[in-house]
């Protein structure tokens, strides 16, 4: 029977990363882009926890970092929503394509 090893987790994380990048590049809605960013952060989390699980030694650096990244993701979501409301007040939409006054 196939046993699940480190590589499997790394592949899952890489798939999450690519999904996140794809979402960021294709979505035009600011909230959609935020979801893409969250996927990227979770790719890092999966990696950290997997590396932690599959190494010898008693410390939990990776899991601790993953926990902190979850907190960071929450803080970033709060700021993202604040910025989106700010944009909505100015432009009456959260479509990032409509934000193109600054060009060069």
């Amino acid at each position, binding site marked *: 029977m196939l046993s699940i090893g480190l590589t499997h987790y790394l592949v899952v994380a890489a798939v999450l990363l690519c999904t996140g990048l794809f979402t960021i590049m294709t979505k035009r809605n600011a909230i959609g882009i935020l979801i893409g960013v969250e996927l990227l952060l979770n790719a890092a989390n999966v990696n950290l926890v997997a590396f932690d699980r599959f190494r010898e030694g008693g410390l939990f650096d990776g899991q601790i970092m993953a926990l902190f990244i979850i907190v960071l993701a929450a803080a970033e979501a709060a700021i993202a929503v604040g910025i989106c409301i700010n*944009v909505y007040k100015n432009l009456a939409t959260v479509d990032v394509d409509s934000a193109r006054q600054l060009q060069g």
Partner: protein
Amino acid sequence: MSLGDYLIPLAPEFIMLIGACAALIVGLTQTDDRRQFVSPFALLVVLAALVATVWLGSPTAETVSPPGLWLTSLTYFARLITLVIGALIVLVNWHQPVAEERGEYMAMLLLSLLGITLTASANDLIVLFFAIELVSVPTYVIIALSRTDSRASEAAVKYFFLGAMAAAILAYGMSFLYGAAGTTTLFSLTGGAVASLWQNGADLGPQAIIGLLLVFGGLAFKVAAVPFHVYAPDVYEGAASPVTGLLGFVPKFAGFLALIKVLSALNWELPTEVFWVLWLMAAATMTLGNALALLQTSAKRILAYSSIAHTGYMLVALLVGPVAGSGPMHDGVAALLFYMAVYGAMNLGAFALLSAFRSGDRDTETLDDLAGLARRAPMAALALAVCVFSLMGFPPTAGFLGKLYIFSSAFSLDAAHPYHGAMVALAIIGVLNSAVGAAYYLRIVAAAYVREEVQEAKPTGGMPLRWGLALCAIPMLVFFAWPSRLAGEARDATASVHQSIRADQGKVTAAEHGQADLASRDVIGSDTP
């Protein structure tokens, strides 16, 4: 060992943290006259932290470093420069956002400065990552608060989403570094000996190389290096001018400090692939930044592209790396730190001038807006000229010495250095780029001094802004005549970098390193030495 032994060495950080919380609370009050206190209060907090820094002095071998941190002379230098330039930033931003939002604004500014000093002390990938995010996250808020029009919110959206993406890439890269090294501690500090994360025996295999490239990608965004520079011109243009002056310094300093940390954990021995990626990045950043600056008509966008070009010069010094026992003339890291200090002030000064005048009902932004400034406001035009000549790297300004140090450190590399030829070539590209840069910097000076006035420039902002502008420009001349003090501080600051690299001579195997690391944590975790 008492709790105080851990807390007192961090006094400047605690002052900034408490000050930021207090500024938030003061900002909540409903009366305008109480809100007027926020800016003087923020200045007071920064100066108090500066006094605490000087009182504590440079950390010595006896200084206790709390877990996850390593207080060194680099910390001391970063605190000094951050707080001095932080005080100038507060002066320039004195009247910046509307009074209702000034409390939040100044609190975010203080937290950002706190993030820089923590980045300089970080001794753990976790602390390093979150210190950098502590610098970045408040700057997203600062941009959104900086002015009420839609351009500022567009700049905030662009900066936030790209910044959050860069942070996630950085975290993903760090997860690979953790996987390769098996620990997040950068330097283990057992019994006075310093051993870096990748002692020679450690695995610098494909996993670590992927991790390093991703980490450098994430940090390249923070310092606005090509190809992660695309946001810079738009964000710099969209944010209000005093904020742009801040954006040129705060994330860049934190990013370079983090790069210094990561590279010294590698003993500055880069895998060949990584070296060439950074080499190309430095060359492309200088060249593209300067070439695109030539095409701009807005003074703000010119300065934005010039800040990209300056990142390129600083990357040259970063690649030269530390050379023990010498000042910034030969030591790349010392030259980088010297340049960063000078760059922070001269860049802020240029943007302070843009914020000191309004053209009609708009903020001063284009070269036309600056036309004829010398006749209307000779002193302000002189300050602009000093800052711009300094950015150009023209004597008699400190910017000239900064460039001289960077390029001389590259030229004076030991001929036995594996990348000697490549670094000399990079320095030549840098010198040629400085010459190209003169073309667009001179357009700014020429607009102020030679051209006829297009539109009346009305002075705006108060006395603090004018003081901030003067205090950015005057040191440029002072440090040209008397650079030894700042250069000496920059040289001392690299001591910890040399220490971590010299420690490599006693080669420890990866396994021993891991055990030493565990032991060091036990010591730090317990209450007895």
